[in-house]
């Protein structure tokens, strides 16, 4: 069974440029998460989807970040415009359950973003 797929693995951009990350969750997993992990920190949730619906986006900086999961499968996270402080690893995770309770989240390898 294929795991969570993310692309690109690495991205270097100049500040004020846009950037997009793509995630393909494990087949059949209806819940998808985007996390941001700063250096030396644990992942922090940005947004959680249940199928197509964003059920928790309270931590998503909506002035510059956007996300979508149009068909309830793949998801895209976008930053426009990027700032220096956005440099981090962006992780995607999925689970078969409708929430975090009782089921492990499977993580992708992440996209390492560097904003110069």
């Amino acid at each position, binding site marked *: 069974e294929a795991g969570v797929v993310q692309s690109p693995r690495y991205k270097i951009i100049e500040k004020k440029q846009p950037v997009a990350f793509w995630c393909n969750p494990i087949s059949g997993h209806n819940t998808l998460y985007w996390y941001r992990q700063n250096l*030396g920190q644990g992942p922090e*949730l940005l947004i959680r989807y249940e199928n197509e619906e964003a059920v928790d986006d309270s931590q998503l900086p909506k002035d510059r970040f956007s996300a979508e999961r149009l068909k309830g499968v793949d998801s895209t996270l976008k930053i426009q415009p990027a700032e220096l402080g956005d440099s981090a690893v962006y*992780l995607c995770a999925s689970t078969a359950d409708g929430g*975090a*309770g009782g089921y492990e989240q499977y*993580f992708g390898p992440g996209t390492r973003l560097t904003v110069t």
Partner: protein
Amino acid sequence: SQELEQSPQSLIVQEGKNLTINCTSSKTLYGLYWYKQKYGEGLIFLMMLQKGGEEKSHEKITAKLDEKKQQSSLHITASQPSHAGIYLCGAIQGGSEKLVFGKGTKLTVNP
């Protein structure tokens, strides 16, 4: 909001030694997850604990959730270089189904 404190922040051990990593929560734990992360990679699920007093083992790694459900420990017996990485504990934040993580413990195992 719930906070998880992990100790130690980093640990260097000689191959074959035992070690323990702790995760302390500011609130009651309703579900505690242990993950391992290697540099440049995503998180790998190790174990999940839900009941006070629960203990689970996988190969040489044992995790426990204390009776009062505010602390968990991860114990590695006879460590190997393959155990090296960052160990993260995560907990479900009550009422939100949101998983919050500690900052991680970086483990180095010298051959």
